[in-house]
């Protein structure tokens, strides 16, 4: 039994039995076996065809690419549990017909010493077995995280998402956030920088006579920003909002 599940946002919307099919074409054009009507999908996007007793995935020069287990591919053999991503849809290739590696210890294979290496030894999870289990147990919803941002309280409008590893604030347009106003020539180029580590943001003064202040305190070295901190540089006043689990 060889099956292909078509998933969209955690739900299986279609299923193909591949046992008797030699080719399965995928694209936005209505003449394909699997039509995905989405602008991220090319007219002729990819094709899956049988060669001997194996199935091969081939990208037919799609614009946005075909991903096999997260990597772009031109052509690849399909194994049980493989995840193919096309646009926003995921195709799961399931091949239950042939024997598959027997999972040891309920799906975990240790790459340690023969026998159980003991609880303090590090094991490595066999990702192939793991992927198959993932495919069978359904997709895991990722909780989207709202990115950290600074909102303008004065000297500008809207907000600025802190997506880059380094955001510069200064008087010229080379900086990400520009300080305006008559006395802006006293500010450096850049005057301050907001830098990012995986969990926090830091603000530091760089150059010029206008120094950044956080909650009224002048910044000398790098200062870790906390949620709702007020940053003031010249006429620009910003409020920092940290990364949060809630969508904006």
């Amino acid at each position, binding site marked *: 039994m060889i099956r292909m599940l078509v998933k969209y946002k955690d739900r299986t919307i279609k299923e193909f039995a591949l046992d008797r099919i030699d080719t399965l074409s995928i694209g936005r054009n209505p003449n394909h076996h699997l039509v995905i009507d989405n602008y991220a999908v090319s007219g002729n996007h990819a094709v899956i065809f049988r060669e001997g007793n194996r199935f091969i995935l081939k990208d037919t020069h799609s614009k946005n690419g075909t991903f096999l287990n997260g990597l772009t591919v031109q052509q690849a053999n399909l194994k049980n549990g493989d995840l193919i991503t096309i646009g926003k849809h995921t195709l799961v290739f399931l091949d239950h017909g042939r024997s598959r590696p027997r999972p040891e210890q309920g799906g975990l294979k240790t790459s340690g010493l023969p026998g159980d290496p003991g609880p303090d030894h590090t094991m490595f999870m066999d990702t192939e077995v793991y992927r198959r289990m993932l495919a069978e147990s359904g997709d895991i919803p990722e909780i989207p995280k709202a990115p950290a941002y600074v909102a303008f309280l004065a000297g500008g409008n809207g907000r600025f998402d802190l997506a880059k590893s380094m955001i510069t604030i200064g*008087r010229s347009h080379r900086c990400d956030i520009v300080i305006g106003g008559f006395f802006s020539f006293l500010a450096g180029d850049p005057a301050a920088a907001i830098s990012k580590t995986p969990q*926090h943001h830091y603000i530091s003064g760089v150059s010029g006579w206008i120094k950044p202040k956080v909650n009224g305190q002048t910044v000398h*070295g790098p200062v870790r920003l906390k949620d709702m901190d007020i940053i003031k540089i010249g006429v620009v006043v910003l409020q920092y909002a940290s990364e949060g689990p809630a969508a904006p």
Partner: protein
Amino acid sequence: MIMVQAAGFSDIGKVRKANEDCFLLNEPIGLYVVADGMGGHRGGGIASQIAIETIDGYMANPSQEFSDADGTQAVDVQSAAANRLRQGIFLANQKIYNQSVADKACRGMGTTVSALYLSGNSIITANVGDSPIYLLRNREIETLYTPHTLLHERKKIPKSMKGRYSESRLAHILTRAVGIRPDVGVALVETPCFSDDIVVLCSDGLSGKISQEEIRDLVYQNDSNSACRKLTDLANQRGGEDNITVIVVRVTSANERPVNRLFGRIAGIPAWIASLFGAKNRSRAESLVKKAAK
């Protein structure tokens, strides 16, 4: 240029018969690596050693052309230095994998890699596996690595396996390692470096025994060398079931941005004047639009 004072120390621990950890201090190029090997009869030690030697050789030799063989993985957001480090880890992965396929005694060997590369004015860290990298700044500690263990990727545990393993067991199950598979995913972090930053790299033999706060306090109270010794001793006192390796890198001076030259100031004057008028025009235009809307 970043000036640092670094020290590293590795100990076999109290229970294991061999030290499968390996570490590298290459101060001239600013590269520091901890590798915690695993698997096989003697494979773990070999894997970590190959990883260290390969990464060191690749990073230290600038003549070696940086081959962008897998352009699919290289993310453009990262700098060339970060990509170079990633390539070094890919190369190590290839070598270990090839050897584990060729040599029966080494079958299934692999290693974690946690690397720190000080380049330009940035701290670049890369990790595969569960060896921690900590950043100490302003008397606070934070992590710079992504632990690739089931405990931290709990969301990814399939339903059929839920509840089968205790937490301490999950923390020892890696979802990624160098040399196990032909390809490897590397977690990279790049962040600007400041004076007095301290980066600590260690193996899980240390982080499993000592809390982050204890590491922070010990590192701030001692110089790099004795901090390494004291951390290792403490982990040994608390059992020392695993190999213990620690590197402490203390940034003594980082050049913060170059000071503005006078020329830059003068060249900026037209832009400044334009920005004054630009702001005025914009606000006038906005008020006009508002009036029109009314």
